[in-house]
């Protein structure tokens, strides 16, 4: 069975085989995934994921091994595999890995749970998905399809390190995603709304799933009236979601220290230099109350914190794990995360956001003679090396003489990250943090992204 003892045993075997540092994570996770398309359940899965992940440092080189089987024989094989990999890497490693110093901790952290997710019958969760879907479908007869995804997971996690850290976790989180598609003739509008929290089943009241459903449906129907967007350079106002995605994708990824060290970041060698306008202050904050990406410790057992990335336009810090902290001669700040035991921890964001300013949305609008208001995000991609980005917004609206006029669809925002940060000349006070899922190094973790409304001068808008 899973326990801290399995993790400790794995660490001891590693040390016995000559590892200079080792850590082991043992987990057992119960998950539910329900995907409902219209009124058909595409997927109703309950799962048990159990396993061990071991990291061994040998002569300055890492090895990693993981196994879903916790049979003693397999644990031993996994540990030996990790060490074998480290020993094979060591002679080739030019720069020896050092780990930033941290105090050893013994602690136990549990999510605040009123109604344990595992105690709720599947039927109740399926009914919730049906209710959400029904709410969106009945909003308007032009709603052609609704997809609802319900996910939850909870369980036990154990981390032991050769430095004496012992952490026990009882995570619990859940989320709901609604995608509404409206159709009228050949016109199609698609909108996604989602929200999630770290809590028990009671979270599904707090995230107001029916409200999400109505909002998705309303916005999707709204898109049917929208015209294709113009292309060119405009003054842009980005809503909280799109600006949050920009903060995460374009700036956040570039502030991850592994990218900085490998040279794959436009923010490398720029500490204390100006990278944005005076209005720009950005954090990556693992301590944000009830944040989707919050945690007390990271996957290396480092206490997390609120990390200042940009202060009034000046770059102030990076997101660090122990290795990158040592290499950059900085203090570890708890930025290492792994999707699960089956993956090694890598430098990741938690809740990344632009700090609110004091203007109102109307004040942002007033300064715009001709521009585009962009809302929501369909995703996009970023080249952190070159510092370029491209995001597709869910919807938009033309701004003429300080007024929102014509609704727009198929609109994207692209540009250079640093130029865009410099061109931010208005920040509202209406901050919102929203739920995200971030992919990096083949791993997906829960991240929060946030921002108030932001005004950007001279931004590149692409229409269809």
């Amino acid at each position, binding site marked *: 069975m899973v326990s801290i003892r399995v993790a400790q045993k794995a660490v001891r075997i590693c040390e016995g085989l000559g590892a200079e540092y080792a850590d082991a994570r043992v987990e057992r996770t119960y998950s539910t995934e329900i995907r409902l398309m219209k009124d058909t359940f595409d997927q109703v899965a309950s799962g048990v994921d159990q396993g061990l992940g071991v990291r061994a440092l040998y002569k300055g080189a890492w090895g*990693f091994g993981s196994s879903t089987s916790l049979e003693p024989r397999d644990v031993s094989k996994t540990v030996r595999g990790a060490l074998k990999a480290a020993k094979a890497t060591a002679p080739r490693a030019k720069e020896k890995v050092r780990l930033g110093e941290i105090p050893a901790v013994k602690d136990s952290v549990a999510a605040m749970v009123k109604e344990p997710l595992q105690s709720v019958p599947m039927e109740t969760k399926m009914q919730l998905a049906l209710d959400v879907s029904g709410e969106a479908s009945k909003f308007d007869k032009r709603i052609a399809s609704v997809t609802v995804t319900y996910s939850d997971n909870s369980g036990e996690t154990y981390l032991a390190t050769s430095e004496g850290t012992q952490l026990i976790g009882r995570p619990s989180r859940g989320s709901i995603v609604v995608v509404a598609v409206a159709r009228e003739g050949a016109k199609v509008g698609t909108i996604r709304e989602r929200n999630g929290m770290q809590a028990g089943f009671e979270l599904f009241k707090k995230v107001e799933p029916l409200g999400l459903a109505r909002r998705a449906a309303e916005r999707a129907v709204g898109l049917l009236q929208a015209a294709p967007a113009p292309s060119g350079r405009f003054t842009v106002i980005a809503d909280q979601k799109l600006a949050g995605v920009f903060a995460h994708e374009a700036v956040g990824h570039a502030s991850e220290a592994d990218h900085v060290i490998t040279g794959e970041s436009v923010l490398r060698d720029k500490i204390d230099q100006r990278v944005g306008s005076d209005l720009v202050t950005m954090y990556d904050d693992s301590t944000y109350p009830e944040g989707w990406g919050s945690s007390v410790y990271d996957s290396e057992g480092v206490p997390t914190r609120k990390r200042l990335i940009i202060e009034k336009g000046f770059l102030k810090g990076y997101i660090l794990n122990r290795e990158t902290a040592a290499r950059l001669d900085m203090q570890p700040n708890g930025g290492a995360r792994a999707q699960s035991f089956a993956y090694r921890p890598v430098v990741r964001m938690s809740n990344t956001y632009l700090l609110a300013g004091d203007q109102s949305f109307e004040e942002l609008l007033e300064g715009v003679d001709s521009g585009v208001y962009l809302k929501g995000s369909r995703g996009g991609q970023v080249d952190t090396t070159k510092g370029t980005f491209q995001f597709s917004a869910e919807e938009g609206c033309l701004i003429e003489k300080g007024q929102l006029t014509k609704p727009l669809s198929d609109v994207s925002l692209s540009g250079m990250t640093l130029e865009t940060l410099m061109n931010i000349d208005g920040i509202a006070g209406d901050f919102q943090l929203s739920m995200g899922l971030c992919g990096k190094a083949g791993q997906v973790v829960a991240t929060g992204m946030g921002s108030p409304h932001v005004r950007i001068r001279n931004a590149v808008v692409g229409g269809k």
Partner: protein
Amino acid sequence: MSEVLDYALRRCVTQGATQAEVFSTNEIDSNIVIEKKEVKIGQIVRDQGMGIRVLVKKAGGASTGFSYVTDFSRRTVADAVEKAIGTARVKKADKDLMSLQVKAKIRRAADIFDRRVPRVDPSDLIEIGVSMLKKASKNPKVSTISGSVHASSGETSIVNSLGICSSYKSTGFGGHMYVVAELNGSVGVGWETHASAYFSSDKLIAAAADAADIAVRQLNPKPLEPGAYDVVVDQDGLADLFMNTLVQQVRADLVQRNQSPLAGMIGSEVASENVTIADDPAVLKALGSKPFDSEGCPTSSRSIIEKGVLRTFLHNSYTANKQGVENTGNSSRYIMFGTRPEYALEPIVGPHNLILKPGKGGKEELIREVKNGILVRGFIGAHTSNVQSGDFSLALDCVFRIESGELTFPVKQAMIGGNMPSILKQIRLAAGNLKQVPMGPGMALISPTILVEKVTVAA
């Protein structure tokens, strides 16, 4: 191993399932990560799990229930069986759900198991990584190199209460290299990939050299005038675009729900006559080859688009039963975002090896055909495509200008908007340079570089 699958199956039936199926994979993946011109970390990942699916008959039809575990203890398996049956009981009856896959004769598979691969050690991968680095760092303008090498071997098994009891072994080998070149403040990025069921370090090392070459040639890019261009697209980009559009559009499950623009188009011309696309599960050394699909149905080769005409959609047991047609053996377990082991998912529909029929000659000869165009290696944002309408808006990655049959300069920034399947009508030529690119677990695109005519490009 098979003992615990049998236990799960028996338990399903004794606990009240009308039919049951247990799908399992057991895989070991060894890989190395290359960062900053250095081999960084060796990893060995062992993953085994089973997905348990039951079918419960009830008034008005039947329902399925699903559950998976990576812990094979009897107690956990018994709990999982109970959950799967519980789910099937509470789901509304589906009148079209008739049966899980019935037993049928399975032919021998193409060779997809390379005996060398399970013997590959982390140290072997590291040597390959070092050779890749050596090749890629020859040019002094190369500033950063990252990449990966991996070798995996595994066994896929399925048992069901209708008598199916089969398994096959497979291997995989591949990697990628991402190279950044710098000169006087200009940054060029190049990448290349290689993947096969068989071990072939030479090809991977050659890919590393190509990635570096592309990175250097991407230095000092110039802007492109917006307008209509002939676009030459490489295989990696095509695989990304196809997976997010065409592959989803030929899924019978989505067609039956009217969520594909190809619904009702069988027998119609959906592409130019130069386009022939087949799904072939029996290609030697191909990552999508397999003797049976993820429900245990024997796989076979199908023509999907023949000289521009849509011939068939891909079916699993459910969609075939529903429509009263032959099951094409295309049950597949995957998700579109992130990674999830196959055993953790209920089957949907997907291709094995999607093969775009090649033409003659190399990529250079294809480029020589182009008067006014661009060469595109990859797309950014293909996952944001709208499957249902087929509309996509893509940023182009690694772009070169083609003028009068010659590559003339690297292009700074470019975007295209378009629609699948409409764009298939603009495919004029294909080269003969077949390459396989993985599209998901057990899915690959095997295609040449192609030429798409008159695409509107924004800059």
